[in-house]
């Protein structure tokens, strides 16, 4: 049985289609990332999985259960952290964690959990007096307070400073070792790349790629780049015949070679063979950012033309 199974999900609000067609399945114990720009349909997908929204068509299953029909059973095993959702503003951190703990049959020890998200020193402060990052950490704690078997985390490190972000990532890694399945929504490449076993890239309401981070990068067919500097004239015929090379560009003394396979070694050997002295030789492998750009046609954080996410 899959932890999460989404099949041909389609969600429309009036004439606006938020999700066109999303199918994915998350294995138990896996950390699965959904990556996409604001407004791509990430949160809508997650809210359908959480049972907050009813799909216009298509099906959603969490541990084999329908989040609407089997609501009470799903709620026991599903922990959800929603994007931009406030809590009782006049209650303290400790009061809130205890309140939410009381809703579940099984769950974490409130004080231990507060400690794990680094809020012990703030535990008697009211929600309204916490910083954005602290509110975010509390929100993550509440998603985990019922010891869920599946956790949905929507933009979990928004508003956190780099240190707090790493602390929360460590918490998610702990979840992995506890065997908890995590569906992680993010528009932070670093977060996705570090935590996720597999990633779905959503663009304009559709999944346009689904693979491991490494698989996405190699699947984007971007190849590698070798750059080096030469002094004096450079005859690119030295490199043209190499099977690994797909293109060579010379700009002044800067040479950029694109290709695949064992590109660096092959280029180095050819240069030695041709008595060319190259300096500052660098191998550049494409990363997830490059893959995202190649797959969607725009960079991840280029939000200029997208509307606010729901």
């Amino acid at each position, binding site marked *: 049985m899959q932890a999460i199974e989404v099949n041909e999900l389609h969600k429309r609000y009036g004439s606006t289609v938020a999700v066109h067609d999303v199918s994915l399945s998350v294995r138990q114990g896996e950390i699965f990332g959904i990556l996409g720009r604001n407004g791509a349909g990430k949160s809508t997908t997650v809210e359908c999985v959480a049972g907050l929204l009813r799909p216009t068509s298509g099906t959603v299953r969490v541990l084999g259960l329908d989040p609407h029909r089997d609501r009470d059973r799903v709620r026991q095993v599903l922990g959800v952290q929603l994007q931009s*959702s406030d809590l009782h503003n006049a209650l303290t951190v400790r009061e809130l964690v205890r309140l939410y703990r009381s809703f579940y049959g099984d769950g974490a020890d409130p004080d231990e959990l507060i400690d794990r998200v680094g809020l012990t020193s703030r535990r008697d402060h009211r929600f309204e007096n916490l910083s954005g990052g602290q509110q975010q950490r509390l929100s993550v704690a509440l998603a985990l307070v019922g010891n869920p078997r599946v956790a949905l985390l929507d933009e979990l490190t928004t508003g956190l400073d780099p240190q707090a972000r790493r602390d929360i990532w460590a918490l998610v890694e702990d979840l992995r070792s506890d065997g908890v399945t995590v569906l992680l929504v993010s528009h932070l490449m670093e977060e996705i790349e570090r935590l996720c076993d597999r990633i779905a890239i959503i663009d304009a309401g559709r999944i346009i790629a689904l693979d491991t981070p490494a698989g996405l990068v190699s699947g984007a067919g971007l190849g590698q780049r070798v750059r080096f500097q030469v002094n004096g004239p450079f005859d690119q015929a030295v490199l043209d015949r190499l099977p690994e090379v797909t293109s060579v560009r010379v700009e002044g003394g800067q040479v950029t070679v694109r290709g695949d396979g064992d590109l660096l070694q092959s280029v180095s050997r050819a240069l030695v063979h041709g008595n060319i002295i190259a300096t500052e030789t660098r191998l550049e492998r494409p990363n997830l950012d490059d893959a995202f750009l190649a797959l969607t046609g725009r960079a991840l954080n280029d939000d200029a033309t997208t509307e606010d996410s729901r």
Partner: protein
Amino acid sequence: MTTPTTQPEITARPPGFGAWMALVLAESKMVMRDTAGLLIPIGLPMLLLVMHGISMDNQVLPGTDGLTVMEVFVLPLVITMVVATVGVVNMPSFLSYYRRSGVLRRLAVTPMKPMMILVAQAVVSVIQSVIGIALALTLALAAFGGNLPRSPLVALGVFALTMFAMYAVGMLVAALAPTANSSVAIGLVLFFAMGATGGMFGSREALPDLMATIGEFLPFGAAAEALGAAWAGQSVETTHILSLLGATLIGSLVAAKFFRWQ
């Protein structure tokens, strides 16, 4: 990645009594920490009582077998005010805030049903009303020589109906108000409109006939009249009871139809 061969059976475990109590406690803290919100249902009626008390309203009404203005008019009015401010102004402002800020959405993804927050708010509102009324009654009895109602059971029954009616109007406000701020505004306007036509600022007899009649059959005026009758030991007019029942029914139906959880 391990695929466990034996899956623990997933069972629904609806939150028990402890969780309900935790939610009621949470709502009580929210209400108690909202000092400004507490001032109106507790402070305003006391102020009204003191103003009437020192202006010699304990004079006996002619032909009533020893009843005072305090008993027949002021106390019923004060009790109605407490219930109305809690139900029509305070409760909807909390509910609208919970909706707008996503508290209801957050609850909706836990085993606790968001509906229970409405119940918890209602419970806390009852407690708040009872405290406000107990304080006002104590003051009236101790300082201004008032007496308990001559038909105490009728008074309790009317009090319960008044709460239902006012909370239903409050739910209607929460359901129809687009934002938390507008819910406070709408609640206050409704409260003052019902209060003004229901005798809060002086006898309804001073109002134009039409307004006086409308005011009598809005829940505020009806509650004050019915409580006054219970105080005097007279029978409560059926129309006043029907008015309270009608407000309860209409408020609940509209709220059930239009209340948005997010």
